[in-house]
């Protein structure tokens, strides 16, 4: 008797978030949660705590619960094939957010998000422009093996490889967090302090750590050493306002509304393109002050 939820009861949507270690992810979660409330859906939310196996299990359990649609923010590009197949067999549409999976397109309904490679490329273009194509760069990578790390590195290199005077002189992982970012930057400065023109960070948290390290080293971040990062959390805007950070490429986490639009389309039987680009921006230091108050996360 529990099976049929009744036609007029609200649609149930399962949202599987891969983890919540960064402000960015929280913003994404809040966006999906908030929008569910606005549109009157019942949201089943699960956080996999950075463990892919947890995430697969969560999606399985959404299927077992008989949800009407699934929003999936995948931990990693690969590995979701079997469970997506299960969802497909059960007739549940899956909308991917913020990260694409390396599966056949018919395994999911659509993907909403930006492209990590694209982000790295845009970032590199800004750096090239602001340094005149000549810079020694220190790179703070994300967690080794993580997709954003690999793609943001790749995208960045795609562009700067065309400029012989743009060189990555140091590159280490800062694990996407502030503490490690600061520690790594400190070591970089000890090793090559006078030879670093630019720091490229795979996310904002590491950039904030790096900025602190540069200040403590006695240089002026944003001037002596230019700092660039990806994501666009509010703290990064504050750093730009303070003149410490030179530019961010946004990767918007506010994907909730678009995700529900997609699900509604799926329920209505419409066909959407397999990739709906999210609305990302590129923000330079000079514009930061005027924008900061509108940042939500």
């Amino acid at each position, binding site marked *: 008797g529990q099976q049929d939820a009744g036609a007029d009861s609200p649609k149930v949507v399962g949202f599987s978030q891969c983890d*919540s270690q960064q402000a960015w992810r929280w913003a994404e979660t809040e966006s999906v949660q908030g929008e569910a409330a606005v549109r009157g859906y019942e949201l089943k939310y699960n956080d996999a705590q*950075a463990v892919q196996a947890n995430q697969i299990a*969560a999606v399985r359990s959404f299927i077992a619960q008989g949800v009407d649609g699934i929003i999936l923010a995948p931990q990693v*590009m690969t590995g979701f094939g079997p469970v997506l197949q299960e969802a497909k067999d059960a007739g549940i549409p899956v909308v991917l957010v913020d990260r694409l999976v390396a599966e056949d397109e018919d395994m999911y309904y659509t993907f909403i998000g930006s492209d990590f490679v694209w982000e790295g490329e845009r970032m590199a273009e800004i750096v090239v422009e602001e340094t005149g194509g000549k810079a020694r760069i220190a790179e703070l990578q994300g967690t080794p093996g993580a997709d954003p790390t690999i793609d943001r590195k790749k995208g960045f290199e795609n562009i700067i490889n065309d400029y012989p005077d743009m060189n990555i002189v140091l590159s280490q992982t800062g694990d996407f967090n502030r503490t490690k970012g600061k520690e790594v930057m400190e070591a970089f400065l000890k090793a090559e302090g006078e030879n670093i023109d630019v720091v490229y960070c795979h996310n904002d948290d590491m950039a904030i750590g790096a900025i602190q390290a540069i200040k403590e080293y006695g240089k002026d971040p944003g001037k002596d050493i230019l700092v660039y990062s990806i994501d666009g959390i509010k703290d990064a805007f504050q750093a730009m306002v303070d003149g410490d950070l030179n530019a961010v490429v946004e990767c918007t986490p506010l994907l909730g509304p678009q995700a529900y639009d997609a699900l509604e389309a799926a329920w209505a039987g419409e066909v959407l393109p397999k990739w709906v680009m999210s609305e990302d921006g590129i923000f330079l230091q000079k514009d930061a002050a005027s924008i900061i108050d509108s940042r939500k996360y």
Partner: protein
Amino acid sequence: MKLLEKLGISRRSMPLIATFVVFIALYVYGGISYRNFFSARVFFNLLTDNAVLGITAVGMTFVIISGGIDLSVGAVISTTAMAVAVMTQAGVPNGLVIPIALLYGTVLGFLMGFIIEYFKAPPFIVTLAGMFFSRGFGYVLSLSSVPIVYEFYAKASAFGLKIGNGRFTIPGIALIVVIIAAIFLSRSTKFGRNIYAIGGSEQSAVFMGLPVFRVKVLVYTLSGFCASLAGFIYTFYTLSGYGLAGIGLEMDAIASAVIGGTLMTGGYGTIFGTLIGTLIQGLIKTIISFNGQFSVYWIRLFTGGMLLLFILLQKAFVAGTAGMKKAEG
């Protein structure tokens, strides 16, 4: 108590029974609280989703019973899966891929066991080094995640015996097979008994003329094998290799064993207990996703709280029955 005695249940298996009872209670709680919880599908999902953990925990249980610890297992799982993926990409025939994959953890386990025994080095550190090494090796194989291309894996992944609305999948079957084999190993083979002996008192085991060196090296080898097997099973689960897979899984595996009644100081523990310990963790996760309203912090608080509640219940149950025994005596 009389009843238990009639059923042939000795006082010594009380903790195990307590564990089982609490597991059932938790399961019933889930069933009462959530729609669609009592279904074959959820039950078999529980097996499928926890197969990797369960298989790893079996090896871990043996290691802990012998008085050691193996922190490398999570990394071995990931690297095994990565090795499979990379080999399929490179076109290595599947007949070679499988043995190589299974050998990886086995050989690493053997090496760690050998270092631990030969140099009398603390297992915690040797296997931590094993974990660092294995993670690094996985990254060297490929930094980015790699899909597995062979049809075999996709088929194995899709395979499942239909039971009700559930599917008894290969990971689930593998888990059950490994558990049965391990129960046999622990109870009915000399190797298994020697593991307990060494955990009870390594010095005594030496003095009693038991093959301590060999058994201890083999225990780590076995754990490595279990981890590799789990890694191989993981490929059916995700059809890919991923350098960050299985992070922190060693802690879960230890927790499975310990919840199931294995003593970290060695000498005591059962495989069945470990299975229940694994399923309890899985059950907690299932309840969390059925609930669907927990933020990550509530997930963590809930998990910790459930663990606490569970262990206290187990403790109280055992203490209660022990008290009854005394009163009778």
